[in-house]
């Protein structure tokens, strides 16, 4: 089957952080499936190498390819090195997906220890800025690029037990808006994706609880939580021709949650 033209990423180079599992893994697979060469990144090489092998076997196109570059996104030098090594190997970065994030505290904001606060600010906010600091000038040299930052519906509402994480995710939406304004004239688009609960390792903690499961049906008009494929296709859309005039936006992917409750009673 040919790649659908509005979603054709042939010849593009993509970097995906947090790509060893979950949403990031699916994003890397889908970008490769639509023709991009993909850098699979996370802190540890082993997890990435498995994803790279799977992409080469099952997803990469003729021109496409995949490789591992490790990166801890809460470290500036490692962020710079990720982009520099990508350019050294493949000559360019066209698509940057800032997906890696840290959620290191459960409970009220007032109880967040300093180390945990710094960790979330560094990984979820500064990491995205460090990566774009380095990637956007390269994109600007070709007057073409797409930055996609993984936010969360948590960043659009208060949260009783993940408040600081939610604050960093709201910041991600503002990062997309500001990058849109700063880099738009160079034809770089920057957008945020805000999913609600998606089945990944991180979310299984919540979804294994039967009470939570019942609440799910109240919260989501579509009466289900999300899958990684519900998110990764939207990334492909923003990365390619279909997303050419969308910038500074946050696409909420939540099965209708923010629209209202799907229950007639109660």
């Amino acid at each position, binding site marked *: 089957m040919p790649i659908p033209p509005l979603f054709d990423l042939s010849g593009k180079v993509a970097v995906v952080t947090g790509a060893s599992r979950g949403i990031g893994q699916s994003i890397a697979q889908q970008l490769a499936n639509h*023709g991009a060469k993909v850098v699979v990144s996370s802190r540890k090489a082993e997890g990435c190498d498995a994803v790279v092998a799977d992409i080469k076997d099952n997803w990469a*196109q003729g021109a496409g390819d995949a490789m591992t570059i490790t990166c801890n996104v809460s470290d500036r030098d490692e962020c710079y090195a990720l982009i520099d090594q990508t350019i050294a190997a493949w000559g360019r970065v066209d698509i940057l997906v800032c997906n890696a994030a840290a959620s290191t505290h459960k409970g009220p904001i007032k109880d967040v220890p300093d180390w945990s606060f710094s960790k979330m600010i560094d990984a979820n906010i500064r990491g995205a800025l460090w990566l774009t600091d380095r990637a956007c000038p390269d994109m600007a040299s070709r007057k073409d690029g797409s930055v996609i930052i993984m936010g969360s519906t948590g960043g659009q509402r208060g949260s009783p037990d993940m408040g600081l994480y939610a604050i960093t995710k709201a910041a991600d939406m503002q990062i997309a808006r500001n990058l849109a304004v700063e880099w738009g004239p160079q034809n770089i688009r920057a957008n945020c994706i805000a999913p609600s609960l998606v089945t990944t390792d991180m979310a299984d903690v919540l979804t294994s609880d039967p009470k939570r499961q019942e609440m799910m049906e109240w919260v989501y008009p579509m009466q289900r939580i999300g899958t990684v494929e519900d998110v990764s296709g939207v990334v492909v859309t923003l990365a390619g021709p279909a997303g050419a*005039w*969308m910038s500074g936006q946050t*696409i909420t*992917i*939540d099965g209708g949650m923010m*629209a209202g409750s799907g229950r007639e009673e109660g």
Partner: protein
Amino acid sequence: MSAASKTPSMFDLSGQVAVITGSTKGIGKAIAARMAQHGAKVVVSSRKADVVEAVTAEINRNYAANGGEAIGVPANIGRRPECEALVAAALDKWGQIDTFVANAAINPYYGPLHEIPEDAFAKIMSTNVQSPIWFSGLVCPHMAERGGGNFVVISSVGGVRGDAKIGAYCLSKAADMQLVRNMAVEWGRFNIRANCVAPALVKTDFARALWANPVRHETALMTYPLKRLGDPDDIAGMTLMLASRAGQWICGQTLIVDGGMMAGIGRFE
């Protein structure tokens, strides 16, 4: 098109049937053509039979090789019986509707909101708001029975900001955003997604009065961070995403496609 996928693309619309109103020019035509190019069967519609026929033939000519197919059904979406006939024609031909795109809209008045003639206001509301509601009632029960579907209303960034000249139109476009939120709540449990796509200024005949105005045009180019007006394909791509596997958990949302305008003013240079 380039190399074949190892895994089927999420954006392959083979087997889907889509009805797109106002699809003989501009954004609607781009949506119909692109969906056909991606393998869908499409119903082309607008008021004039000869134009409908010409666009239908053009799509069949260009995209039959991709598995795309088109039929044409003329309809004035401001009249309920014609809306019913449009939906019936699609079901008669293909037995299913997977995606409905309420794209047709009118913008007949240019001036202060309080001076709008009553009949112009009524016409805007019936065409831009009530007609999509009619269509939702005509297609959603059918979609629910088949296990799901996709309903898209083409709205406008005008629906999220005031406008000194086209206030009533903007009011109707804001109503469309609330319509899809309410449809999400009412139909979400049946796996029906309802969303808006809200463009800023796109270079179409419909918006000619806006971009032909040199001040508006210049202001747009200056203030849109991406420094260009929209192209119908920019809107078609997002609509196609919503119709595809990629859009299966997006519901009750408004996707703003505006060259970055709402994010903040670009540099004045």
